[in-house]
């Protein structure tokens, strides 16, 4: 089984420096891409069926295809790597950033070349201190070696790549909020359209891709679309970084073929539940995905299969709910997070989420009533897609509505017994 994304990574050790990275075949993809026309690189990525790894699964080449090309295109054009990893339960980009910074830089150079971007930024969350240090040093090496800056490797193509370290807030990971944050403003999301590809950073054409997406690009260019598709066990190409946290024997992170079934990840890789704990459910891809329960564990972890199963692949970071943890308490924790991290821009989000948190708090403390459940359900509907500026509130509604469905008995017990049975 091939693991292209993590091949060079040994956790706990220093990442490959430029020389070691080159010796392992690094930057060959940049050389190859620069010999091709941007449209030819785009065609390879399109053929590979690479879908965005930030959670939404939008086809990467299609995202790039909306960028205006040619001499008339507005300049400068921008490429941004969204490295603001803050989705609760998610810890995959951190491995790629700390473990192989040159892989990301190489992916960014090729992607920027494909859309003919002039300037690129890595938008990094402030908490990833080690990643910042390692990226700075890798960027300096890449500039010295002529992979960045004017006329890369003697070609016509030039690219400036800067590291931008953010100052907190989950909403910065939303791509239009990220643009405002990068411009030095409050990180409120922007209305779409216009989409960033047309009018993004400082009103110029901008592509925002996630860390894991960009890290796939050099391998696709090097090895080809057919190879990439063959890595996968499903229609979506490539491998995927899957994580598991909670009361399992071996919590961790693994690069596996896209479409590996949930059960296989849970049992073979995470070692199954810890002694004394029973499985009750899981959030498959971070906090903003619908719960998956025991009879759905044979579903393949890929974009389409997870959607058919009524959830989402999201970030591929599973959070396990065990039988000694209160589902109402877990939802209170999740909705507190979303209420706190709402940027405050649109009313259904900031007001609705605070209401939800308050109702859940009451239930958990034993003062809940049956009518609360209907109110929660109606809030979950009102926060669904189409009612808010961005995806934060719809994300918050997912665990809530599926939690109410799967753990209804536990909610009723809180109301009947006027207390949390787990406390």
């Amino acid at each position, binding site marked *: 089984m091939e693991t292209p994304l993590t091949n060079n990574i040994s956790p706990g050790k220093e990442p490959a420096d430029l020389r070691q990275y080159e010796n392992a075949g690094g930057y060959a993809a940049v050389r190859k891409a620069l010999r091709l026309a941007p449209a030819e690189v785009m065609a390879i990525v399109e053929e590979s069926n690479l879908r965005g790894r930030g959670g939404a699964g939008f086809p990467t080449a299609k995202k790039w295809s909306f960028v205006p090309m040619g001499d008339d295109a507005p300049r400068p054009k921008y490429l941004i790597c969204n490295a603001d990893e803050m989705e609760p339960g998610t*810890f995959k980009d951190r491995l790629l950033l700390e473990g192989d910074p040159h892989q990301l830089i190489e992916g960014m150079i090729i992607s920027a070349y494909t859309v003919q971007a002039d300037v690129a930024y890595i938008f990094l969350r402030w908490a990833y201190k080690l990643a910042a240090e390692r990226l700075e040093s890798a960027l300096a090496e890449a500039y010295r070696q002529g992979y960045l800056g004017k006329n890369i490797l003697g070609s016509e193509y030039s690219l400036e790549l800067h590291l931008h370290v953010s100052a907190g807030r989950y909403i910065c990971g939303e791509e239009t909020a990220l643009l405002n944050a990068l411009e030095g403003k409050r990180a409120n999301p922007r209305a779409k359209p216009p989409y960033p590809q047309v009018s993004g950073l400082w009103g110029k054409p901008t592509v925002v891709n996630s860390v894991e997406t960009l890290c796939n690009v050099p391998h696709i260019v090097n090895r080809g679309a057919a190879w990439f598709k063959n890595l996968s066990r499903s229609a979506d190409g490539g491998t995927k970084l899957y994580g598991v946290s909670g009361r399992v024997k071996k919590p961790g992170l693994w690069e596996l073929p896209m479409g590996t079934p949930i059960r296989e990840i849970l049992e073979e890789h995470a070692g199954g539940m810890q002694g004394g704990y029973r499985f009750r459910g899981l959030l498959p891809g971070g906090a903003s995905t619908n719960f998956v329960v025991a009879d759905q564990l044979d579903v393949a972890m890929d974009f389409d299969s997870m959607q058919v199963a009524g959830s989402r692949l999201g970030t591929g970071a599973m959070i396990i709910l065990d039988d000694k943890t209160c589902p109402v*308490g877990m939802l209170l924790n999740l909705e507190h997070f979303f209420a706190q991290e709402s940027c405050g821009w649109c009313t259904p989000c900031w007001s609705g989420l605070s209401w939800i948190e308050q109702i859940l708090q009451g239930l958990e403390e034993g003062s809940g009533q049956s009518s609360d459940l209907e109110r929660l359900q109606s809030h979950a509907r009102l926060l669904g897609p189409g009612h808010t500026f961005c995806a934060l509130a719809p994300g918050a509604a997912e665990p809530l509505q599926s939690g109410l469905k799967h753990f209804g008995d536990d909610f009723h017990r809180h109301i009947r017994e006027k207390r949390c049975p787990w406390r």
Partner: protein
Amino acid sequence: MLSKQEKQQIEAKVHHYPNKRALSLEALKIVQEHRGWVTDEGIADVAEALQLRPAELEGVATFYNMIFRKPVGKHVILLCDSVSCWIMGYERLREHLTTRLGVGLGETSVDQQFTLLPNVCLGACDHAPVMMIDNAHYQDLDAGKIDEILAMYRQQDIERADGNTTDQ
């Protein structure tokens, strides 16, 4: 006024961006690094340097949770309260830390050594529960481990203070 060092550090980042407004957060972080937190004077200094209105910069500063607009202790403890850490024992650790430090969340210990803040997911969920102190991550925490870490910081601070006295 911005110190010479603050000015130099801000200027080193100018070439990253096409205008001064984009430097807002970088400049606020630099001022915070030197002064411990961002005072009203700090807002005024940065606003002047970047040619922004102070009220406008204040709106930006208060949006981001890592810009401190209130004084903090010598060390800032960021305790992860997101879902994986919550499942793995966040509440017990919070109780332990608040008892040990004699403060609630958002408060600073009487000796001004530690400020305790809750924080969203720190990206080490396979080693939950986790926290950061200043720039360092600590994981797989329990009460005993927290005591050792706090003792280590206190010891370092004593040694540093002793060192300073000897130097003088």
